[in-house]
């Protein structure tokens, strides 16, 4: 957003499309191997040694991402409400929550997400509705931004897939779906919905604040929550509610990443004790989370991870797909699969 200026909403759309391409790739590969997760078909397509190294990279990437995202969340919490609470505590509590939920089975994982969706969405919708009267149209135009510059614009757009990167969890859950062949439909709907919300939130935030003002803030949407006045003055500050829904949102995101890490490690090392893995992963993630010295360093790392980790990952399924078709690989016969487990 900082790069694209008033072109923010358009950059978001472009970013969403880029993310969608990655999603399509993942689902296509997943459908080719409907009984395998990304770790499984990595090995089949690339061969054991290379496949395992790639899997390890992916797991490491998400491990770092969980850590940094947790830190980001903790910074937001400390910066806005809990000024005196040590930041470690916010991190530890969030990680504990993730640890205790990630070793559950996949359907529990799905239900947790399902349960939190309304809790995340309702406050956001409420805030957006009340923010409408403060919208200034001139904050949104011109659509492409002043002095459009392709490089900066793409820089802005490429941050977006990162914001909704938890769709990547689809790579780990396809084998657990009732009907993996229908995964494309479900994935598109889910992604489309999440992307729409993101687009609306970004657009509204820019529409209310304008670009110059947003560039001075760390968390514009949170501040948007602080500016809203609910008619009849039932609540004088609704930012607390927004913050709670933000916590739910962070929790489900972290849960997805953590889930990828735990399941990935287990599958990679053929060690199916999720509980031990998820407990052992926690201290490592904690160390990652407290590694950045300050909030600016943290964002530097986060952007670096996005740039060098997430973006290649969006292309990765297509590489897999083309190698798979060159090698003529299809789904393995049932018997062989059982052996490889």
């Amino acid at each position, binding site marked *: 957003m900082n790069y694209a200026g008033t072109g923010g909403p358009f950059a978001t759309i472009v970013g969403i499309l880029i993310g969608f391409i990655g999603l399509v790739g993942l689902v296509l590969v997943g459908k080719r191997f409907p009984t395998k997760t990304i770790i499984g078909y990595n090995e089949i397509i690339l061969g054991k040694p290379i496949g395992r190294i790639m899997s390890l990279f992916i797991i490491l990437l998400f491990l770092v991402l969980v850590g940094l995202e947790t830190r980001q969340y903790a910074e937001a919490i400390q910066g806005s409400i809990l000024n005196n609470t040590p930041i470690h505590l916010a991190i530890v509590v969030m990680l504990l929550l993730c640890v205790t939920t990630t070793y559950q089975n996949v359907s529990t994982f799905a239900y947790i997400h399902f349960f939190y969706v309304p809790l995340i969405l309702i406050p956001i919708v409420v805030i957006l509705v009340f923010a409408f009267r403060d919208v*200034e149209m001139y904050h949104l135009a011109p659509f492409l931004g002043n002095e459009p510059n392709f490089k900066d614009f793409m820089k802005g757009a490429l941050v977006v897939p990162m914001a909704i990167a938890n769709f990547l969890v689809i790579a780990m859950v396809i084998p657990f779906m009732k009907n993996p062949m229908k995964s494309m439909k479900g994935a598109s709907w889910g992604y489309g919905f999440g992307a729409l919300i993101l687009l609306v939130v970004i657009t509204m935030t820019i529409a209310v604040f304008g670009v110059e003002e947003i560039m001075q803030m760390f968390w514009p949407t949170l501040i948007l929550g602080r500016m809203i006045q609910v008619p009849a003055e039932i609540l004088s500050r609704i930012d607390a509610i927004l913050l709670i829904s933000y916590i739910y949102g962070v929790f489900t995101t972290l849960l997805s990443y953590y889930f990828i890490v735990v399941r990935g490690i287990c599958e990679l090392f053929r060690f199916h004790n999720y509980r031990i893995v998820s407990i052992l992963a926690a201290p490592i993630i904690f160390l990652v989370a407290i590694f950045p010295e300050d909030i600016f360093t943290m964002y530097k790392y986060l952007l670096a991870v996005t740039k060098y980790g997430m973006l290649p990952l969006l292309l990765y399924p297509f590489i897999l797909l083309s190698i798979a078709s060159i090698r003529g690989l299809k789904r393995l016969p049932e018997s062989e699969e059982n052996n490889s487990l």
Partner: protein
Amino acid sequence: MKRRLFVLGIIVFLSGCWDRYELEERANILGIAIDIATEEDMGEEPEVTHQKGDFPGQDDNLIKLTAQISLPGKIKLGPEGGGGEGSEKNSWVLETVGHSVKDAITNLQQQLAEKLYLGHLQIIVISEDVAENGIEEINDYFRRNPEVRRTAWMIVNKNDAKKVLEAAPPVENVPSLYLSDTLDNAVRFGKLPREYLGMFWIDLSDPGVDATLPRVQVINNDRILIDGMAYFKGNKMINKFSPIEIGIYMAIKGMNPAGYSVPVSLPNDEGVYMVKAVGRDSKIKSIIENGKPKTTFEVNVDAMIEEEIESNQLDLSSIQAIEDAASKRVNEMADRFIKQLQEDQSDIFGLGARIRAKYPNYWDEQVQSDEKWADIYQDMNIQIDYNISIRRTGMEWK
């Protein structure tokens, strides 16, 4: 399992909360007034953040900060006392000096047993001198602090900002609450745009928009009069306009509800009619003509007649005559108002932002910055077409 639950219970129930501050341990700042400190004031500066004469940077932002704090449970609130005691005893007005807002707040904290809390801050008063010196340095602390609400008010006082906080209305327990209610309700009556802190900051940072702040005057030491608005060029206050011009300002921006009245008289007639606006609608058309920006305001105001003095002759034809006369009168006022704004290079209607939004190429090539825009704005062609329609005249037929 039982033991686990027990351990969990201990963790949850016996641990404390780091950010716990009981209400009684907090000193709620309800209002802050910022004045420029004189040499004399600075003489009593405590050495809390730095030693005397050791403040780094340019040493020209000396401020005198006055805070009105309420201490729940310590200063008695509620109806008591009798005998017209007023509200001055219910809150505590403290004064301190500093080189910046945070410096002054630190000095203030050093004098108090309770933790200062800005979450209930209702009103920030700055004196005209402070506003004219530039407001950026003052805003920074309030923007950074997560406790400050963006729905608080920032207002400019004619002379001493401190006087506003000292005004003690006899009807409300806490003076600052009364003052902020005065402003909030003025918004409801259509007398003031919703230009509270958050909005003010947005206007301040937008390219091609200049900000405004409500301006007040203390009356009889116990209340405030909303005395028009102060307008800015960049982050410096440059001039002010009167309350009736707030009406014009809001009409041009199409803000509802409407609430200002104008007296109108007809030629060859002694009667004076008070015409009150009830609804406003406005179209702002910005175009580039021959490489120059041009803006037309089309303002339509619905109004009613609330009073008729020294005359008794309302009918269809005279209503139309009054509409014309009122439109003409307001048009003239608006013209003068806009001329003044252009002269001061203050673009409070956001015409620059509209041009930037609609003609990005023009903006990128010819304007680019606020300073350049101010020059273009000064000589810009601005037309105003103000049209008043009288809809009703109250309970009297004639």
